[in-house]
């Protein structure tokens, strides 16, 4: 065993873990409802893979190997817990399976059930995304904490509590019934979109703390689409994220400066990503119901159109926002609507929409103040605009956004 060999094995283990983590955790927990034990068992399997694969080479079916090793470890874990009565049937089931699947024949993909568990209404909505990132993608609590601005230890404790709730709170590992499905799916989509990163909507001065999780969000949406290939909203969400992702390199200048969408160079946008997004959106629109994510993707699609036409169809964007506000009147959406209306019909019209928003709702909401400042500046109310810019700057987190707003204030 030499070092290059070890290094190559480590990379293989990492790749297999990334591809298979969620499938393995889902399969190992679907009967026990015990996510923490499934994760422990899998992590034991990954550790032993590192040794075995380095010595004996990577097996033909790495995922099957991991499954067998993880299942053995899980049986040990469960035995160890001495909750014999409750877990007897599970134990039997696991042992039964392990004789069948020694070299890893196919096992069912239970990730969809796992996604619905993570976004179950009985679990604190703030924990839906972290739980998904950990159980489906295997991200560590520390990294999840980074993105959500929560201390690593605290995030670990909250994840632990959520998993305890899954195990003992009677949360079913199943795909919801027809009548529950739209609402439950919405929660799953919300959680995935949150992973993608709050504030990727290219609004003037939006923050982007979650951007390092953008790829994970896209990955989750692709998994979900694989599992639910005929849901328009799933395709809508994927299209939305791909459109935003397509502009990643255009969002910052070479000096790190923040560049709002209207000033971005469309030549820097990724054409393949835009085309993929458009394909998903077109397919989604052919289905029955137009939902929130399809509308958000449609707005981004109009922006992307500028790469071809050289101009932005603001009236079209305003119309999509109008529909969007009707079905999902979130604060960010209402502000996006006001900004679009201001571009289409003039700043006064936009300001009027902003005035309708309740004071307490927007007092700590940075995009509100950024848009308001911009519109006040356009109608020449200089001192009001300066005040609003100050609020926006004070509420901004990203230094590039702060700098951008500071320069606009002058």
């Amino acid at each position, binding site marked *: 065993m030499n070092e290059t060999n070890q290094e190559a094995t480590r990379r293989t283990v990492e790749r297999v873990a990334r591809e298979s983590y969620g499938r393995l955790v889902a399969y190992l927990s679907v009967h026990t409802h015990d996510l923490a034990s499934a994760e422990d068992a899998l992590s034991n399997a990954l550790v032993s893979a590192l040794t075995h694969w380095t010595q004996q080479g990577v097996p033909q079916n790495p995922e099957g190997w991991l499954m067998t090793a993880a299942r053995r470890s899980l049986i040990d874990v469960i035995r160890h817990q001495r909750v014999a009565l409750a877990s007897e049937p599970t134990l039997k089931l696991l042992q039964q399976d392990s004789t069948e699947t020694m070299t890893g024949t196919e096992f069912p993909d239970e990730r969809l059930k796992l996604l619905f568990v993570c976004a179950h209404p009985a679990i604190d909505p703030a924990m839906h995304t972290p739980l998904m990132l950990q159980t489906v993608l295997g991200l560590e609590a520390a990294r999840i904490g980074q993105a959500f*601005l929560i201390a690593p230890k605290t995030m670990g404790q909250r994840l632990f509590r959520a998993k305890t709730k899954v195990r003992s709170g009677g949360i079913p590992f199943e795909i919801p019934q027809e009548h529950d499905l739209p609402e439950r799916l919405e929660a799953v989509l919300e959680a995935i979109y949150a992973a993608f990163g709050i504030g990727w909507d290219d609004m003037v001065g939006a923050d982007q*703390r979650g951007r390092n999780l953008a790829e994970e969000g896209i990955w989750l949406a692709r998994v979900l689409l694989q599992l639910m290939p005929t849901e328009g909203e799933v395709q809508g969400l994927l299209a939305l994220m791909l459109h935003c992702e397509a502009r990643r390199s255009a969002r910052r200048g070479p000096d790190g400066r923040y560049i709002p969408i209207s000033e971005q160079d469309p030549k820097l946008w990724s054409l393949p990503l835009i085309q993929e997004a458009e394909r998903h959106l077109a397919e989604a629109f052919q289905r029955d119901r137009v939902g929130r994510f399809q509308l958000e993707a449609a707005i981004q699609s109009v922006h992307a159109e500028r790469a071809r036409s050289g101009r932005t169809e603001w009236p079209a964007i305003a119309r999509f926002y109008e529909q969007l506000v009707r079905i999902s009147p979130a604060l960010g959406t209402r502000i996006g609507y006001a900004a679009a209306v201001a571009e289409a019909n003039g700043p006064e019209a936009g300001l009027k929409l902003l005035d309708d928003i309740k004071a307490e709702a927007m007092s*700590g909401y940075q995009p509100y103040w950024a848009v308001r400042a911009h519109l006040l500046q356009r109608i020449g109310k200089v001192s009001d605009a300066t005040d609003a810019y100050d*609020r926006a*700057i004070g509420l*901004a987190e990203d230094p590039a956004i702060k700098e951008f707003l*500071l320069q606009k204030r002058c």
Partner: protein
Amino acid sequence: MQFALMIYHTPQEFDMRKKDYSDPHLGAWRAYYKALVEAGVYVGANALEVPETGTTVRLKEGKRRVQDGPYADTKEQLAGFIILELPSIDAALEWAARCPGASIGAVEVRPLAPEAMRRGFTG
């Protein structure tokens, strides 16, 4: 509950302050202060002089020990503090991330001791 945001600066940042008070981040600090006050969370704050102006005093076996400079010999030094009234640590971390000090050094967030305990100290 109340939280202290303790702002730590790098030597470079302190150097900038020594030259004059036209700190390039002044605009961001003013805006941040304004946002804290408008959000109704501001309790108090203050900035400290540069660490070299500090003097550390100890009494060891009845003898005075006076030492030039700050207490801790670390690269980043305490530059100021802000006290905020907030519902949770989550909100405190949110405001810490927005603080200009977070992007030019570090901000430590720590809850103030419970009020009963603080009253014990002041009598």
